[in-house]
């Protein structure tokens, strides 16, 4: 599947109607999701088992399944997010295993996958919690991080992984919450591929 077609397909998925600010429920834009997914596919990381950590509306999980992943897990703590994700998966008849839990409670002895895909929350270093957990669960992790945290992330992961690649993009965040002052704000986002 071509990247443009995947993007159009992902754009058609249902988004959050009532996003929760404390869970940073920004829907991942379809073009950015397609970018990350095709990157992972071309690297050969989407053939086995995949876990979408903090799946939200399920865009990575469904995309991974479409691109040929054999087994896909999608985990989120929020009931509403999982309802939307499940509707999205059902619409396209994707066999995805959804689990509602706090990622802190995932036991690495129970769940091991080939690849983790995630767009973790940025605030108060929640992204670090997601990073730590993801590298416990998989050899390869694809993740998106705010460009301003690049130095911090790069220094941090030195101790927990063996190497990484970065792709730099600009991420348009549409006005989602009342406290946002602009209709669309562009932020720099780095797509990482971490190798355990």
């Amino acid at each position: 599947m071509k990247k443009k077609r995947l993007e159009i397909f992902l754009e058609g998925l249902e988004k959050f109607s009532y996003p929760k600010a404390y869970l940073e429920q920004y829907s991942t834009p379809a073009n950015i999701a397609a970018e990350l997914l095709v990157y992972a596919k071309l690297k050969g990381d989407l053939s086995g088992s995949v876990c979408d950590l903090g799946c939200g509306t399920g865009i990575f999980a469904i995309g991974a399944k479409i691109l040929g992943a054999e087994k896909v897990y999608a985990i989120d703590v929020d009931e509403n997010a999982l309802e939307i994700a499940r509707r999205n998966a059902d619409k396209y008849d994707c066999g995805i295993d959804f689990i509602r839990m706090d990622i802190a409670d995932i036991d690495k002895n129970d769940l091991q996958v080939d690849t983790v895909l995630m767009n973790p929350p940025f605030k108060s270093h929640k992204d670090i919690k997601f990073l730590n957990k993801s590298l416990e669960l998989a050899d390869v992790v694809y993740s998106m991080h705010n460009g301003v945290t690049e130095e911090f992330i790069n220094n941090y992961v030195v101790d927990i992984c063996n190497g990484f690649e970065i792709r730099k993009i600009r991420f348009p965040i549409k006005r989602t919450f009342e406290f946002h002052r602009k209709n669309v704000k562009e932020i720099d986002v780095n797509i990482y591929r971490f190798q355990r």
Partner: protein
Amino acid sequence: MWKNLVKILACPICKKDLLLIVDEERDNDVIKGYLYCSRCNERYPIEDGIPVLLPLDQR
């Protein structure tokens, strides 16, 4: 919930393996039921096919 999923799930409180109790299933998929931790005597519901592994106060 795919039945074999229970193998990779554990109690979020004590990390012990869980027992699957099925109330309703369709094509080997559990639609309704619960996961039981015998150590904590805690039931984790499976709602609309999605297991909810959260302590009671966080559901």
